[in-house]
């Protein structure tokens, strides 16, 4: 009766799971896509980055993201592959937006799915840290004092 049989995983094209896009994304849709890959998923951890109204004490009125088309996607695909190889997760999705982003809007989404929650938490946290470290994406903050390219990732 299927005792100890590993649950089958459905393969989904990486281009659906890793995306850099101008338009907003649906959290529900990305979570559903990830969940659809395996009935063995018991835990999903999502990181959502949103535009804050204050950064280092400055009031922000708007954000603008630039990316290196091609290379940014490649780096995200690499992060997803390493996450799956190095953590005990079943699937991961990553979406980052570019272009103008209003305060409160979504910027980035990472979805990590595993059988047990600890693996999904670890992989999700690692992936967003790695994204910030190696993905060629740049943020410009519009403040009352003018526009500034953010050069430090906290």
């Amino acid at each position, binding site marked *: 009766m299927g005792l100890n049989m590993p649950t089958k995983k459905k393969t989904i094209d990486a281009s659906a799971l890793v995306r850099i896009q101008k338009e907003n994304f649906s959290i529900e849709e990305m979570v559903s896509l990830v969940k659809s890959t395996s009935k063995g998923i018991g835990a999903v951890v999502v990181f959502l980055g949103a535009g804050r109204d204050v950064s280092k004490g400055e009031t922000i009125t708007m954000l603008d993201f630039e990316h*290196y088309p*091609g290379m940014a996607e490649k780096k995200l695909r690499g992060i997803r592959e390493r996450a799956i190889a190095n953590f005990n997760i079943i699937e991961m999705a990553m979406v*980052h937006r570019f272009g103008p982003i209003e305060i409160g809007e979504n910027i*980035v989404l990472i979805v990590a799915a595993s059988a047990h929650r600890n693996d999904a938490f670890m992989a999700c946290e690692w992936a967003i840290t790695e994204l910030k470290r190696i993905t060629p*994406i*740049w943020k410009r903050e519009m403040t009352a004092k003018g526009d500034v*390219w953010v050069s*430090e990732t906290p």
Partner: protein
Amino acid sequence: MIIVRFFAMLKGIAKAETKEYVVNGPITVAELKAMLKKDFPGLAPALDGRSVLISVNQEFASKDSVVKDGDEVGLLPPFSGG
């Protein structure tokens, strides 16, 4: 031809998005940097510092990496995605 792409604040400093160089043979990243500094003196501090990374064909490169005809080079200031 080698195409160099500037990003974020470097685009503002260079007042350009790309710069193309015709080369007779392979050169190193260090040699390409010297050419860029000559053409864009404003980029010198960024190119001499450690914070700007260089990519060759969308992979991170070092100063000794080779750049040849048809390659794409990226000048990448510190990332701030996420």
